[in-house]
């Protein structure tokens, strides 16, 4: 292979295309031969060839990039394999899994953090997405511009370069967010009390979650003993383990545009006649929302809940950008996928990393199955 990385990529891409066309042709010919042997009509033979020929890129890619890796990682998850091994890995049985579930404090932290994002972050994110969708659904002029503005963060927000602006904004001393909080609390003392109460409640909740992670509640006792925060206190966003989860929640809320669009589609599907009939019967706007829109939205709420839950397991970019090098903070904010990455690529322990990926995959499959089971129970699908 040529040393120049650009030429290398071009040559590899060309060879890949030749490989795909060649093997597609092979797969199509094979399928046609089977159909011919079974006595298919010429038209059927031709369609079989074309079908396998056109579908082959996916079929081959599925075998190379999904089936083989999954099989290998299942095997490796029962071994002590490392990238540097030149000899065959040793079979260790269930040891990786047992260590992961019973002894690994980092993995435990990632589970507790996921729980936090699910219990505290997800309802906030979905609530704001629903609020924005209801506001946009009022059908007024300029709706399109607002909709774009609310979706824009989703397009930008997964870019590490863009996420760095949050690192700048959340800086405890000089960041714009704390500056705004400071200037408001000094000019209006009443709001200052509300902010301090918010800080207190937030720190107690976070100390509790950190307590579950660590297995002792010393920090929680300390926070409660310290009592009501002093007048000049501001949030310590990216500085203290008590605060490190909140920026991630803020980013979840900032990127709620996808959920908002799903809710908007749901609101659009609600028949106008139902709303109008209720209005004629004298139902208030509030009643119409809770009694008509909300139940009819339940499939969309449920969908967003499941997708949101799965994506909290996979939060990666925000943690990397905000906390990458900051050792005491990383465990307090880490997601399961981030932990997988950290564990695999800092020590190149492939066996252990494979075990983590299988655990994550099983969790996601369980969530998805629960979705299929429960959605018939409490979600209103039939409206007429």
């Amino acid at each position: 292979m040529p040393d120049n990385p650009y030429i290398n990529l071009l040559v590899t891409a060309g060879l890949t295309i030749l490989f795909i066309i060649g093997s597609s042709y092979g797969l199509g010919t094979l399928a046609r031969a089977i159909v011919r042997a079974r006595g298919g009509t010429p038209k059927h033979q031709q369609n079989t060839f074309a079908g396998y020929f056109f579908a082959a890129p996916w079929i081959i890619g599925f075998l190379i990039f999904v089936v083989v890796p999954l099989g290998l990682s299942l095997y490796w998850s029962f071994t002590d394999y490392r990238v540097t091994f030149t000899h065959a890995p040793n079979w260790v049985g269930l040891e990786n899994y047992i260590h992961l579930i019973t002894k690994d404090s980092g993995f435990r932290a990632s589970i507790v953090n996921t729980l936090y994002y699910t219990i505290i972050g997800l309802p906030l994110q979905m609530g704001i997405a629903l609020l924005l969708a209801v506001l946009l659904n009022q059908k007024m002029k300029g709706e399109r511009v607002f909709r774009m503005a609310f979706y824009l963060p989703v397009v930008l927000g997964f870019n590490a370069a863009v996420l760095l602006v949050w690192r700048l904004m959340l800086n405890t001393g000089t960041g714009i967010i704390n500056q705004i909080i400071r200037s408001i609390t000094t000019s209006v003392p009443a709001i200052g009390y509300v902010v301090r109460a918010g800080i207190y409640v937030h720190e107690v909740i976070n100390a509790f979650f950190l307590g579950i992670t660590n297995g002792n509640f010393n920090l929680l006792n300390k926070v409660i003993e310290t009592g009501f925060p002093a007048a000049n206190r501001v949030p310590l966003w990216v500085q203290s383990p008590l605060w490190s989860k909140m920026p991630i929640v803020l980013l979840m809320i900032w990127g709620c545009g996808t959920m908002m669009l799903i809710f908007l589609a749901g609101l659009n599907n609600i028949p106008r006649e139902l709303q109008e009939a209720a209005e004629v019967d004298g139902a208030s706007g509030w009643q119409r929302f809770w009694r008509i829109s909300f139940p009819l939205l339940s499939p969309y709420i449920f969908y967003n809940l499941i997708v949101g839950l799965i994506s909290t397991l996979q939060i990666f970019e925000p943690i990397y950008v905000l906390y990458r090098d900051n050792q005491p903070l990383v465990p307090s904010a880490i997601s399961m996928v981030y932990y997988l990455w950290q564990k695999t690529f800092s020590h190149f322990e492939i066996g252990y990393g494979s075990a983590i990926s299988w655990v994550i995959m099983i969790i996601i499959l369980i969530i998805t199955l629960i979705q299929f089971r429960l959605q018939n129970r409490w979600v209103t699908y039939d409206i007429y």
Partner: protein
Amino acid sequence: MKRNWQIVKSIVLYILLTAATIMMCFPLFWMISSSLKTISETNSPGIVWIPAQPSLQAYLDLLQNPTFLRVYFNSVFTTTLAIVGTLISIAAVAYAFSRIEWPGRDIVFFVMLSTMMIPPQALIVPQYVLFNKINWVGTFNPIVIPGYFAGGASMVFLLRQSMSQIPKELDESAFVDGASHFQIWWNIILPLVRAPLATVSTFLFVGLWNNLLGPLMYLQSVGLYTLPVYTSTLYNINQTVQPWPTIMAAAVLTTVPLIIVFFFAQRYILEGVVVTGMKG
């Protein structure tokens, strides 16, 4: 009375929506504003909304920095090559699933839909080992080549849905005229699904341009870095004073293509999100 109430209601609505827009777009504003400041302005207490004397120094520094230019080119180069290959292969596979009757089609399609449940991150460990074995670590190949195998089941699904809606008579009459499947695909079907193709390429562009995990794992030298990886190395926790104007200028230059694409393709994006229900 009722009319006045309507007016009040719409005023409140606009105020709420404008407030939400300001909050959602504030990071973008702050990014641009900070890129025009001096280092001391970004690192000192006191709010500077818009710098009194905007400075383009950060942009000039970046545009004269050969590493940054190379990194920018790397992003453009890999994203372009990946989009072209991925788009063509996805269009081919979607054609097979929508316009041709072949034995096993429904089973293969079902398997493809089920792969959407596999989190991509569950595959990164074994894929890394495979790419390491064939000496692809330290090249662009692992972040571009897998897409050539119709990477992205949800995108195939989106395109298949659109292709299924085209009347069957169209390709049947072309068949009678002696056209091959390849000609029908290229000359008849693809021109009819231009809009869905635009949706798919927009999603692919956003995903590739923002990709962090892949480049982080495989591009192990600065000369190969793409924009997200390079820009995040500009922020270094060991430095006491962060070069914020430079970091923000790099972020702005990274964002510009995304914003341009978003403005031109927003119709496709906003519709595509609802069809696939996926993250953009």
